[in-house]
């Protein structure tokens, strides 16, 4: 029963992890960009909610409606004005630039917000629904639900809209896309915005699910990274599944090896995938 409880908790938490990975997956899928500041964007969303909006007394859904477009603009601007200039020149410039951005953002948050722990105080955090012998923590249920919805929305966006087609074409072959009239620089900026918006949603859930600090960004980045690699580069659904796998691994590790081994257990799963199936669970074969 304990095992089942751990598994259920893991799968549900996996929704959040998958969501965290989705933004990074978009960046890599569309722009071949390993966005080292993605973790900071997630944490920025969390701070925006907890420090910026909650004190104003806004109900959570209204707050979400403010955070998401705001984060889109942040991601769009970073891509359009800074990161874009580093693309197309090899592996190093985007890494140095996004890494530099992450350092600036993390430490700016540290200066501005101090190193105090923050969290979103919500009755959901401690509530649980009993279900046949186990308790389903409500906040984890929300994590999973929102994560899954974002995945679905993203798949619809990419698969069924003109913007989605243009993004996929840009991802496949930016040069040929340009000869079709697609402004690839603009597509990249939009992709950056979408990734940051997804990060913002993840950040809000993170705030509700646990405590966070300015330094949480680094942890979040590594989670996102492992989720994307485990799930399979280029597959968004794979990323989401990777999130579930990683969360389950972490919780199982905590349960059987001790709480301080949760992160190590997750990293070990990542290493195992790297060792035995480096292409990930669902490597890119079909759209999405």
């Amino acid at each position, binding site marked *: 029963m304990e095992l089942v409880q751990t598994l259920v908790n893991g799968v549900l938490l996996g929704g959040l992890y998958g969501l965290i990975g989705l933004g990074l997956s978009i960046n890599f899928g569309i722009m071949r960009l390993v966005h080292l500041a993605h973790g900071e964007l997630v944490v920025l969303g969390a701070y925006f909610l907890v420090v910026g909006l909650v004190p104003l007394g806004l109900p959570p859904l209204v707050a979400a409606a403010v955070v998401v477009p705001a984060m889109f603009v942040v991601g769009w601007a970073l891509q359009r004005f800074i990161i874009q200039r580093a693309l197309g020149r090899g592996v190093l410039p985007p890494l140095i630039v996004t890494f530099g951005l992450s350092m600036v953002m993390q430490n700016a948050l540290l200066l501005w917000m101090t190193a105090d722990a923050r969290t979103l105080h919500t009755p959901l955090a401690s509530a649980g629904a009993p279900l046949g012998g186990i308790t389903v923590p409500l906040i984890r249920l929300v994590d999973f639900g929102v994560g899954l919805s974002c995945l679905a929305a993203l798949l619809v966006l990419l698969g069924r809209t*003109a913007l989605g087609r243009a993004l*996929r074409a840009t991802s496949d*072959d930016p*040069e*040929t*896309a*340009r000869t*079709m*009239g697609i402004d690839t620089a603009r597509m990249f900026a939009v992709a950056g915005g979408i990734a940051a918006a997804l990060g913002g949603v993840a950040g809000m859930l993170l705030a509700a699910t646990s405590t966070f600090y300015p330094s949480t960004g680094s942890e979040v980045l590594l989670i996102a990274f492992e989720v994307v690699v485990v799930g399979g580069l280029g597959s968004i659904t794979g990323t989401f599944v990777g999130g579930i796998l990683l969360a389950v691994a972490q919780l199982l590790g905590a349960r059987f090896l001790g709480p301080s081994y949760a992160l190590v257990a997750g990293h070990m799963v990542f290493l195992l995938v790297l060792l035995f199936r480096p292409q990930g669970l669902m490597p890119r074969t079909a*759209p999405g």
Partner: protein
Amino acid sequence: MSGPLLRVDALDAFHGQLQALRGVSFELAAGEALAVIGANGAGKTTLFRAIAGLHRAAGGAVVFDGEPLGGLPAHRIVRRGIALVPEGRRIFPSLSVDENLRVAEDRHRRRGRGQSRRWSRERVYQLFPDLREAAGRPGTRLSGGQQQMLAIGRALLCEPRLLLCDEVSLGLSPVVVRDLYRALGRIRGEGVTLVFVEQDVARGLAFSDHVVCLHRGTVRLAGRSPARSLEEVRRAYFG
């Protein structure tokens, strides 16, 4: 209409240190067809890419309908009315056949100055019935000839006045090539000006009004097609 639709003027282009195009010049009037002939490495693809805006020219100019294109990004050149069917076709692998067409159609919904669309997906399917049958399949799961049709159809949906066709018949069977040229004939009938690369010299001469022969980046031979004999062209082709 006065003046040529396309005028290339002393065009220079490099690949790193290597000069790929050297002083290339030619003209083409609206509605005509120009065959570009030359061996591999002669600079044909570089020429097309330079006109389409994918390759920055080091010198010279490309003038389209009286306006210089100098330095315009590729996606804006398309809006001016030049569409490219690239070497290697370059179909988008994550998109289906229909989606490959839609991607181009999406970008050219609005035609400025009150012009209505000349091309639609339906017309492309009429032109290339094979594609209609394969519409839901991934774009790359087609035969070579069908991919060429898709690439042409995709370019047509950009509403071009000038169509650049790099390597029409490369690797395709004679039957397929014949069908492609029939389609190109119908496209020309709609008033689209055509510049195309053709390895089969005789066919190139037969289908075009003008011919340009490139050798190591320079124009070795240019003029109206029927006037040049096959032998002269062969000599210029091989240098």
